[in-house]
């Protein structure tokens, strides 16, 4: 998959983990270990790992990797493969659902849209969800989306 082709170049120096802001605060998330497991072919352990979803995609690891592994892209490929198996945190399901329903990754409240006029802002461009759905026809992930049971707002 695009972005992960250089994984075998990793010689386990650990720059990614030592410079990772998330690893600094998490007891479990270690990009070097995830890459090592993948090199050893431990597919299920990598894809079922809860820590996979902690990467903040800050790209510090990608920029500092002495072997040009594009670590963040490798992690993204792991996540995409996990998503194909249906292992995804709710927050991503909500965003995908919102995208196909509204064209936006977050459902923008009517109140916000109406408020724009009083704030002196031009009307919000249409998201055109019909076209979004049509353009995404045949994308496995989107077609496999089930209606989520609940759509709690993210805490961001």
């Amino acid at each position, binding site marked *: 998959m695009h*972005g992960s082709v250089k994984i075998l170049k990793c010689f386990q120096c650990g720059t990614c983990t030592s410079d990772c*802001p*998330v690893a*600094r*605060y*998490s007891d479990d*998330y270690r990009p070097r270990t995830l890459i090592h497991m993948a090199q050893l072919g431990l597919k299920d352990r990598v894809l079922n790992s809860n820590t996979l*979803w*902690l990467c*903040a*995609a*800050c*790209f*510090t690891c*990608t*920029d500092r990797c002495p072997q040009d592994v*594009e670590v963040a892209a490798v992690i*993204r490929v792991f*996540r*995409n493969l996990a*998503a194909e198996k249906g292992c*995804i945190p*709710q*927050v*991503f399901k909500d*965003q*995908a659902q919102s*995208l196909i329903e509204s*064209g*936006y*990754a*977050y459902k*923008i409240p009517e109140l*916000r*849209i109406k*408020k*724009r006029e009083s*704030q*002196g*802002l*031009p009307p*919000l*461009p*249409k*998201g*055109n*969800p019909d076209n*979004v759905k*049509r*353009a*995404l*026809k*045949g*994308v*496995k*992930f*989107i077609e496999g989306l089930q209606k989520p049971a609940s759509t709690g707002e*993210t*805490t*961001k």
Partner: protein
Amino acid sequence: MTDKYLIFLGCAIPYRVSGFEISSRKVLAKLGVELVEMPEFNCCGLPLDPVSHETMLIMAAKNLALAEQQGLNILTLCPGCAGTLKKVNKILKADKAQREEVNNHLKEVGLEFKGAIETKHLLQLLKEDIGIEKIKASVVRPLTNFKVAEHNGCHILRPKEYIGFDDPEDPQTLKLLIEATGATCLDYIDETECCGAPSVGVSDKVALALAKDKLSHIKQVDAQALITICPFCHIMYDTNELRIEKLFNESYGIPILHYPQLLGLAMGLTPEELAFNELRVNPSNMLKQLTQGANKT
């Protein structure tokens, strides 16, 4: 050089960061930049990249193709959108097979990605198209004696291979732009560290701990405000500052301003015009200090 841009809002800004949009439009109008509204757009694709790279590529290319129809370059306020549109533009221009695959999807909606336009983030536009000198010249009320810290965030700079703007290890643009307003930009520990926002919803514990340490470092240098240029970083600090104070038994009281709010004040616009009322961390003490500071000189 063009003074006319297609503005790409993305999702987070209309969702809950309208102060960024309002203040950006005000200062850009003063600087003579004409913004054209996109008749239609959708999410840039970035939030879906972790679960479906293919979805991200198609969504980004769809936006680029829509902009190509308008024949204008894109200006974004969100570094996430800017980074995604830049990256996909570059990938699809270089990779013919990938481009054909994406264009097969776009054909369904009567669009085609050609790679005919470029994307810039607000910060890049201010630095490269307008220039520090012109920004200095627009200042009518220098923010003398006002000491702030900056937070660039990640996506404005990284991955450097695709973004190609400033130095991710020692970024200078935002500092220069802050100093152009007459304010002082303070250095602090771990300036380039991530705000933690992308981890919210997956592990709030990690995200809040990251933001907490940043706020502590900013407090250590007595910054009167933190200046951001990303809607997600802004949400992370502004919306969560009170929560972090309670959770970690800390007291910060540091207002989080969008850069155009800072520049707007220096241009003589009022806090009301710059949507300071949208901020969660109350800026009234800071505004008082600012007036006193200006009177001292």
